[in-house]
């Protein structure tokens, strides 16, 4: 069969055609919203119109079969209108209140999980991992699944002082906003890369490879028509591997993950913050990463017990001090937690006032 005529540079379809009539009518004229439970909220327009949103968990990797199931549900209860969120949840947009409970029952019957709204734990922003990325040093989807199985009550019902945004990055490239999450996992390499010198001259550009190194550990190796890496300077970021395939950094026994905490992206109360390193290394233990899951659950529980209402993880830690965070959580403080890259002058303590 002949292919249809291609078009170029048309951009995405206009969003207006995908907005349900209640949104078209109340566009830009919403008055307030209320969260009924972690899986349901209602937005009320100045007109008095209401829009119910039912939020459902998604593993982000979706088969077309599951997308079709979302479509069927939307047809049955929402006139075919639904959306996805920036954290990869599904949101069914219901304009007829009578359809809310039947939809929720149907979702439950089919095994969908509702939740993620408000002061709890929503879906995890994450990267491709072993499923589909060349530079992954762990599997992001596997970690997310293992974490969320354990944290499910905080998605569906249990409440926290404020929302806790989780993220997983399968390497330090950190696709997604892992570096500003309440608690995030970032996979790390821990060994100096090796170089297949014989392939270097055919596959890599010397200036690009040298320029790719943040610590200037790479210098020319004229004898081999390649480069050499200074082991004392290398921090195993893997950026040289990204620009030059003959450089190899993967190591199944040494690759692992680090845990960073206390970041946020919004400006509520305090400025946006980067997440900071608290656990420098846990071995990769597929398929369930039990120590990583336990560490995250532990940090969530200590936060839940100690933070004041509305405090995000980072705000709670800033109030009590990092020394108190380490004593409350019992996490070992190690050299890796002291910045020796670019932020030392901003991060060392410069007063004698601290807590014991």
């Amino acid at each position, binding site marked *: 069969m002949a292919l*249809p*005529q*291609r*078009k170029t*540079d*048309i*951009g*995405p379809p206009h*969003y207006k055609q*995908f*907005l349900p009539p209640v*949104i078209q009518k109340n*566009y830009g*004229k*919403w008055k307030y*919203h209320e969260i009924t439970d972690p899986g349901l909220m209602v*937005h009320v327009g100045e007109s008095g119109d209401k829009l119910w949103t039912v939020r459902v968990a998604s*593993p*982000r*990797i*979706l*088969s*077309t*079969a*599951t*997308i079709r199931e979302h479509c069927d549900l*939307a*047809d049955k209860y929402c006139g*075919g209108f639904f*959306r996805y969120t*920036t954290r990869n949840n599904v949101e069914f947009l219901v304009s007829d209140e009578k359809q809310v409970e039947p939809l929720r029952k149907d979702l439950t019957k089919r095994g969908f*999980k509702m939740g993620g709204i408000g002061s709890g734990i929503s879906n995890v*922003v994450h990267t491709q991992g*072993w*499923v*589909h990325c*060349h530079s992954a040093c762990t*599997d992001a989807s*596997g970690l997310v*699944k*293992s974490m969320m*199985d354990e944290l*499910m009550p905080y*998605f569906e019902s249990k409440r926290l002082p404020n929302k806790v945004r989780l993220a997983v990055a399968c390497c*330090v*490239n950190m*696709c*997604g906003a892992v*570096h*500003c999450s309440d608690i995030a996992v970032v996979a790390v390499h821990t060994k100096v890369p090796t170089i297949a010198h014989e392939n270097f001259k055919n596959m890599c550009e010397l200036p690009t490879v040298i*320029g790719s*190194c943040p610590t200037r550990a790479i210098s020319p190796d004229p004898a081999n028509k390649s480069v050499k890496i200074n082991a004392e300077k290398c921090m195993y*970021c893997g950026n040289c591997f990204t620009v030059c*395939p003959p450089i190899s950094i*993967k190591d*199944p026994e040494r690759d692992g993950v680090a845990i960073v905490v206390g970041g946020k992206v919004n400006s*509520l109360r305090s400025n*946006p913050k980067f997440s900071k390193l608290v656990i420098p290394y846990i071995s990769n233990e597929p398929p369930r990463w039990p120590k990583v899951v336990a560490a995250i659950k532990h940090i969530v529980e200590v936060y839940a017990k100690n933070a004041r209402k*509305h405090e995000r993880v980072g705000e709670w830690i800033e109030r009590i001090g990092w020394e108190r965070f380490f004593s409350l959580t019992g996490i070992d403080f190690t050299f890796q937690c002291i910045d020796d890259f*670019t932020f030392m002058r901003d991060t060392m303590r410069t007063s004698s006032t601290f807590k014991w």
Partner: protein
Amino acid sequence: MKKYDTPLIDELEKGPWPSFVTEMKKAAKNNEMANDAVGHLEKCFKTKVGYWKHGGIVGVLGYGGGVIGRYSEIGDEFPGVAHFHTVRINQPSGFFYTSAALREICDIWDKYGSGLTNVHGSTGDLVLLGTKTEALEAIFAEYSSRGWDLGGSGSALRTPSCCIGPGRCEWSNYDTLDLSYALTQEFQDEIHRPTFAYKFKIKMSGCACDCVASLARADMSIIGTWKGKIEVNQDEVKNYAKNGMDINAEIVNMCPTQCISYDGKALKINDAECSRCMHCITRMTKALRPSGERGATICIGSKAPIVVGSLLSWVIVPFIKVEPPYTELKDLVRKIWEWWDDNAKPRERIGEVIEMKGMRSFLEGIGQSPIPQQIKEPRKDPFMFYTEDDMAAFKAKEAEEKKTGKFKF
């Protein structure tokens, strides 16, 4: 079709959270590529390493991006994923869909690809995971003839994305959905034909809640804000108090500028001292809302850690009106790119170039004056540049003072 034994990833089908392994197996039922992707993933879990090669250059005629080449190192063992390219479909603003539109996307993808997707990828595109080189032109013809286009990849403008904005939020200070659509249409060439030093991301949030994390992960962050008062509905304030809210503890004491007071009856806000952080508004959504002039703050430069550490975006334009046809904003984007193009080395994000060349060079390049809203605090060290023009201006000011007998600092 080969049946793979997958004891490790089968473990990830257990437990309450929806399983991506179940999704992969659903796709694998009648798709050779997805089936081999399942076997391939089990091998990664067993050996604890990945087997995907660096991306290769594949794409569709006339475009330099939108498709990311992906090949397996072990394609002989798993021929279905020997090629397993990603196709990025530019999402509609706000990720709104109808069932008819998504079924159309699924029908085409089932015909030509693995049946696996990411809804959505981190940048915002609807990501189709896994197809072969020879299917790419057909996929593009099928999608584009039905009104769908590819998103950005490589050293290009990446697919712009935005929060839900006026579609379903009472706090949005500008039309994020429309601006995202308008910028995407305006800069089709920059999205589809990579000519930049590196990637450039634009993300749009309607308020300081920043639901798309633009301040943390967009080279250009457009964050909605306002200049008027926060309107207070005192009856609703009373309702919050009646329903158990400790207004002094939860609102007054948590205000970062201490501009709110509450005497047990009425809530008062000293609007001139408010920094518009959104805390009180988000906690008392029925009682408080912004009013007056609306627009956005433009920030620049955020990125993830590669190469020399993460950056959050810096304020460059404290307030800009955001109204169609967005001429001022589009001109600003072009000026930013021109300065970047003049100053960047390959693979340098704009935030890194600004660090190298100095904020002054950047601000002068795009025609912005220095104002205190751009900084947290002034310079600490006394090492600074004085141009001849700076000195002439200082001297001229002093000459003026001598004439008038009044100091101007």
